[in-house]
């Protein structure tokens, strides 16, 4: 069984590495798929494993974009001058400057977002259930509105970053692999994390926070750590997205509350909340659905997407993995006695 499992992982890894060569026309799409997988996995850290359903994780994506862009530009130019010129004239970056910008930008974005998560979390983690969701949604919307009024970072126009300094096809490959590496690292990290005491503690918080507190778990510390870790990874992918998209603006791209901000939740629900594979499977299904409707239901794609959200939430809330777990508990190592109906966790 374990040998089979390792074989499966090896096959998936090989597919991950070869995918951009098998589908050379879909490199950007595949990179976006990894983005969806990463944000879904990080959303599940607090939403599925800890029971805190955030609608504001997109805040870290947008903030990551802006922090990375400001760092990358700040290394070479004065940020205010650069943004007010909006790409006209001063847009020259040497490859060294470009890659230094990406590297430092990612690091800065991740750390800054983790710090933001601790500060915001300290306030919002007092809120429970739907209030937490509304509160975090409020943070994300407010951030978008405030940034779009902030002229130093380009205001409503956003920022235009330099393009990839070599062949553009090579650039697509580069961004795909950066996303894929972060995704694989995140997956392995989470697989380890959920098997530790930390994983058990955040599951305890989800199941009954008062009892967990009474058992001596410092719930606030665990909640902040979990959210900060999630924010770190979202900040990283936000930073790469900024360079991949080249130009972005605050409301529709960076703090895209009703696009990616809600998509990541739907991905997780579609795949199965609180499981490791659920967000991955859900993100793949969702991305396929989205691309197909975008291509074949022109004009009505958003309506179809809203309908998918409603149907998933109302009729299929356990998701694919939850459904499988219910039908085939043996596959997940859940043993149940004959005659009991305790298949659901």
């Amino acid at each position, binding site marked *: 069984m374990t040998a089979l499992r390792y074989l499966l992982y090896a096959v998936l890894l090989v597919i991950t590495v070869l995918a951009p060569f098998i589908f050379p026309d879909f490199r950007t799409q595949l990179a976006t798929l990894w983005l969806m997988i990463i944000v879904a996995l990080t959303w599940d850290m607090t939403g599925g494993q800890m029971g805190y*359903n955030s*609608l504001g994780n997109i805040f870290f994506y947008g903030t990551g974009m802006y922090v990375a862009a400001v760092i990358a530009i700040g290394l070479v130019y004065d940020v205010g001058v650069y943004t007010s010129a909006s790409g006209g004239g001063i847009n020259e970056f040497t490859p060294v400057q470009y890659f230094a910008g990406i590297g430092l930008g990612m690091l800065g974005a991740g750390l800054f977002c983790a710090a933001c998560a601790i500060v915001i979390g300290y*306030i*919002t983690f*007092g*809120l*429970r*259930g*739907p*209030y937490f*969701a*509304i*509160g975090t949604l*409020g*943070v994300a*919307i*407010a951030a978008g*509105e*405030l940034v*779009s*009024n902030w002229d130093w970072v380009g205001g409503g126009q956003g920022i235009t970053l330099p393009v990839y300094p070599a062949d553009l096809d090579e650039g697509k490959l580069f961004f795909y692999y950066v996303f894929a590496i972060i995704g694989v690292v995140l997956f392995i990290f989470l697989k380890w994390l959920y098997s530790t005491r930390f994983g058990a503690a955040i599951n305890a918080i989800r199941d009954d926070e008062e009892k967990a507190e009474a058992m001596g778990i410092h719930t606030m510390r665990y909640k902040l750590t979990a959210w900060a870790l999630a924010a770190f990874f979202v900040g990283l992918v936000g930073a790469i997205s900024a360079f991949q998209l080249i130009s972005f603006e605050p409301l529709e791209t960076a703090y895209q509350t*009703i696009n990616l901000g*809600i998509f990541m*939740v*739907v991905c997780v*629900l579609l795949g199965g909340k609180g499981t490791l594979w659920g967000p991955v499977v859900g993100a793949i299904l969702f991305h396929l659905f989205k691309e197909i409707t975008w291509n074949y239901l022109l*004009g*009505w794609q*958003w*309506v179809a*997407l*809203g*309908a*998918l*959200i*409603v149907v998933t*939430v*109302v*009729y299929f*809330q356990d998701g694919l993995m939850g459904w499988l777990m219910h039908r085939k508990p043996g596959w997940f190592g859940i043993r149940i006695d004959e005659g009991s109906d305790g298949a659901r966790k």
Partner: protein
Amino acid sequence: MDQIVSNISLLFEFPVVNLKILIDGLMIGALFALAAYGLALVWGVMNVKNLAQGDFVIAGGYVAWWLAGLGLPPLLGVPAAFIVMWGIGWVCYKLVISRVIERDLFTSLLATFGLAIMIAQILNLLFGSDTQSIKLPYDTIYLADGFIDIPIAKLIGVCMAAVLATGVIIFMKRSRMGQAIRATAQDARAARVMGIDTEKVYAFTFSLNSAICGAAGAIIVMVWLIQPFYGITYAIRSFVIVTAAGLGNLPGVIAAGLGIGALEQYGAHIFGIGYQQAIAVLLLLLVLVIRLIQQRRKRQSLQ
């Protein structure tokens, strides 16, 4: 920064500006209060947090606008939107809401979010993404040497909102159905035991909420602008108002609605019109934090 200071000093130099902002704010607030009352009703009775609230408002506005385009007198658009949105609310209840009542609250939040996206996009496909409004053939009253202008259309709108609110209050207090709704809000199980068909009460409540929102939207399209994607801000304002006022507290909801309308106008005056949306959201966060501190004092969490 200098702009902000000069805007504030303007308020002190010309006190009449305060009056203008206050009147504007109260007029807008009256309509916010209407939508928020519908939210409080649904939230209190069936424990569903409706994020599609704002989109019901906008949909009502489009119904009135469309009918006015067909030649219906604009003022009749309000009852028409009330009736049409009643039907739409009932359909939404039967298809979606009735299946999320028993679930946890995040489910209802997400399901209505999906609903909100669908309504906004359908409106966008049907009517386009331009802003729309109905021009009413009425004059504007000028007070204080022309400093304060009150279009009669806005005055009529506020009066209609007041009439609607009073009607709903009397209905809730006096009618049999109103009593049943209040009983269900207090204790749904006990109400069922006493022979109240709670399923019917839920359907009625949600349709009523949608109809109130529709009427509010029909008033808004006469006095301001609507656009398919304006819904979310009305939903957020409703949440601000209800969170600040608490459930089942109608005078509180009206007071909070008026207060938020006024605060928002002041904010827009001081910081510039671009910050109006941000101010609405920041008010929500402020209200949440204040409520949180109140709860922490009692060693409880806000849930």
